[in-house]
């Protein structure tokens, strides 16, 4: 049981980031290729405040969230009215900058030596109970994000986001200040990524720049695209099928020969790459497919099929 707790914490973190990316990319069409930049900023800010300055964890997390939000706001202000291709490149570049920052400013971050130890947000005395409790907190946060994403589908704001993704010019012509909405939503969801990163600091406990490579962004993307980027549970399904299979099923339950075990993370990223190619070629909307067409209360659910064609 204890062996499961740590990988499950990591998996839940990926799910949280995946749902947030779903809100950005799957809902609004903001191509954030710098997920790890935002979560990493939150992670290191939390870590630095707690370890170097002995700030209480909750306060550190709050500051980290606000700081990430502020940075996202400034970046968004500059790039969100550019083409989606430019947003992709700029966010990727941003995450690279965060990586370099953490690596080179070692007076603050300890650089490649590593920063530690970030404690758990709370301690109930017994380590394994605390860990389990922490896992439950993370799962609760993931559940809350999922509920939010699901509710949003039927809320005015959700329709607004879809309209921005589908046809921003048309949305503007209907009086929607689309840039401001994108900026606010980008800021909020990136701040949330920062908060998740702050919690992840506590999962990892020992922070090294290697945690901030583009690999993490890639893992979140593959999970979301595989599951279905427009679907609320896309990130959950995708994470279970990718990180879940490798970090939990194979890691814990499959007896991998020692000489091969070393190559496992490598093979994993290879297969993720292959999966991504296959998904985009053969099932671009992901395993869960398009958004379910009809909201609740429709008496005409059957007749809809005809129109779809």
């Amino acid at each position: 049981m204890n062996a499961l707790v740590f990988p499950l914490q990591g998996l839940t973190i990926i799910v949280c980031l995946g749902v947030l990316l779903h809100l950005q990319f799957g809902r609004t069409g903001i191509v954030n290729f710098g997920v790890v930049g935002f979560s990493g900023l939150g992670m290191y800010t939390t870590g630095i405040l707690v370890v170097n300055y002995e700030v209480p964890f909750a306060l550190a997390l709050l500051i980290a969230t606000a700081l990430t939000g502020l940075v996202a706001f400034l970046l968004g202000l500059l790039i969100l009215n550019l083409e989606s291709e430019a947003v992709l490149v700029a966010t990727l570049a941003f995450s690279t900058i965060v990586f370099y920052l953490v690596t080179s400013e070692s007076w603050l971050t300890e650089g490649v030596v590593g920063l530690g130890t970030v404690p758990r947000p709370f301690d109930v005395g017994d380590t394994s109970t605390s860990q389990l409790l922490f896992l439950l907190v993370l799962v609760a946060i993931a559940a809350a994000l999922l509920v939010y994403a699901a509710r949003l589908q039927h809320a005015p704001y959700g329709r607004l986001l879809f309209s921005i993704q589908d046809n921003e010019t048309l949305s503007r012509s209907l009086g929607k200040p689309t840039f401001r909405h994108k900026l606010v939503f980008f800021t909020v969801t990136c701040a949330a990524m920062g908060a998740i990163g702050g919690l992840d600091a506590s999962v990892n406990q020992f922070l090294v720049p290697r945690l901030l490579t583009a690999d993490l962004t890639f893992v979140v993307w593959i999970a979301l695209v595989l599951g279905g980027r427009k679907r609320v549970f896309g990130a959950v399904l995708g994470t279970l099928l990718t990180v879940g299979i490798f970090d939990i099923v194979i890691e814990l339950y499959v007896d991998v020969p020692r000489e091969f075990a070393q190559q496992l993370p490598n093979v994993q990223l290879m297969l993720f790459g292959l999966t991504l190619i296959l998904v985009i070629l053969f099932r671009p909307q992901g395993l869960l497919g398009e958004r379910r067409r009809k909201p609740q209360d429709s008496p005409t659910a059957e007749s809809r099929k005809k129109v779809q064609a």
Partner: protein
Amino acid sequence: MDTLIIGLIEAAPLVLAAIGFTLIYYLNGFINVAYAETVTSGAYFAILFNSILGLNFYAAIVPAALLAGALSALTYVAVFRPALRRGVGKIEMIVLSVGLSFLMRHAVRLFFGVDLYLFDITDPSYLSVFGTGVTSAQIWAMVLAVLIAVGAYLLTYKTTYGQQIRGLASNADLAATSGIDPTKTSVLVWFVSGVAGGLAGIFIGVFSFVDYTLGWNLILIIIMVTIIGGIGSVRGALVAGAATGIATAVLTNLSDPLYAQVFLLLLFIAVLRFRAAAARSVKTLMARS
């Protein structure tokens, strides 16, 4: 002065890489992140012939570059052409190329491990250019960069293929109906692009070392400088590729990667915003004119 000359010299492989990347962006209109692995593959093919099979370095360049070109053409035929035919969107094409990039990069890592490989290049002769010592390999890199640039220019402007390439770039459907075989022409472009990328990888490897992240470490810079350069035509792209390659090399030599990256991002944003403002009503910011 020294830094400038070193910068200029080290720019040669970057110019090669930028030209190769640009050709594909110009032809197919998407950012091919997997181009990073084309660059890496050139370096590893050359290592294979040179350090492992013991071939002379200069003799190893030729088959290595050709193989990199072939690999590039293969990725087009096996992955990108089917995707383009299925009408995969611009952003999804990039995501697809990221997937391919991870697949190829980690395949390389699986076979070659994380070791650093060095080229076995005996007695590089030192020459003096304006008082700065340069090696013969560096001179070769510059010569090849110029040759490839001229070749790419001639290919797109002086041959029938060139007409077809320009036709394809502006409208693939129209080109197809007017009797151009898009596959043949595209494969050629991807091959040439691969050769340029492969050569870039080889020379970057010669100047330092070869490992599986060689191309990946460069690709973001290549993408950004190419977009900053603006791609209105191959002609423009060649000039932009050269200028930005040099600028990048100087930039990375003058400061540490953090500030170079910050500077590049700010420049990227500034240029795109300026272009967006200049072309308010025009839909595409960086697409072909």
